[in-house]
């Protein structure tokens, strides 16, 4: 295998491992990321990082 191909294969493997790790972390979540993202855009999800940070420093 040429150096260029082996580098490409290694990079692809690392990418797959990262996505598998993300899916492992999110597997315990109670709801879908997609639904939550839509709710955040619609403003239906009231807790925002900023409001919580504000509460913490109060």
């Amino acid at each position, binding site marked *: 295998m040429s150096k260029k191909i082996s580098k490409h294969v290694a990079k692809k493997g690392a990418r797959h491992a990262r996505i598998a790790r993300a899916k492992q972390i999110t597997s315990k979540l109670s709801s879908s990321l997609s639904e939550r993202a*839509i709710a955040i855009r619609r403003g239906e999800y009231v807790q925002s990082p900023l409001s919580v940070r504000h509460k913490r420093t109060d």
Partner: protein
Amino acid sequence: MSRVHCLLDTNALIKRYKEEEGSNLIEALFEHPAAKHFLNVCIPEIIATFFSFELQGEITKDERNELKDIFIQDIREYNIIIHDVKGKTIRQTDEVHEISFQVPRPTYTDPKTGQQKVKPAISAIDALVLSAALELKGNYDRIFLFTSDGHMKEVAKRLDIIVKDVEKMRVLSWHI
């Protein structure tokens, strides 16, 4: 045949990081040589979505940071092409808003009062995403908008933007 260009809305891209409805097709999309575009103003929505689960105590701060780093690495490796909002994107939102007012807004039952209510019109970010899709459509022959947001899909159709909803598809296809 010309290259396929896809603009992913937040609700589509984020499926890359969790096994959920349609995530297998997003995975297939990332194995496909199509260009995957993502609008820069949508980046905070990805971060906020991860953060919301930390706030609920469903993931730790370290895990949330790990998810954020995985997303950043996707940008660094150009697995996602970040599309910047330009003057043209902003100007075209007029067209998007005009069309959006013609689309009947969906109704829903308020869980607190039980009353029928009308959902809000498309948001400012929706308008920018649709405008960016129009912009890409002007530059490339084969452009697809990936979203599962019902109201946005209706507006996109009226703008002649081809929508792909991975929650309604069995296999990844480029048929219109």
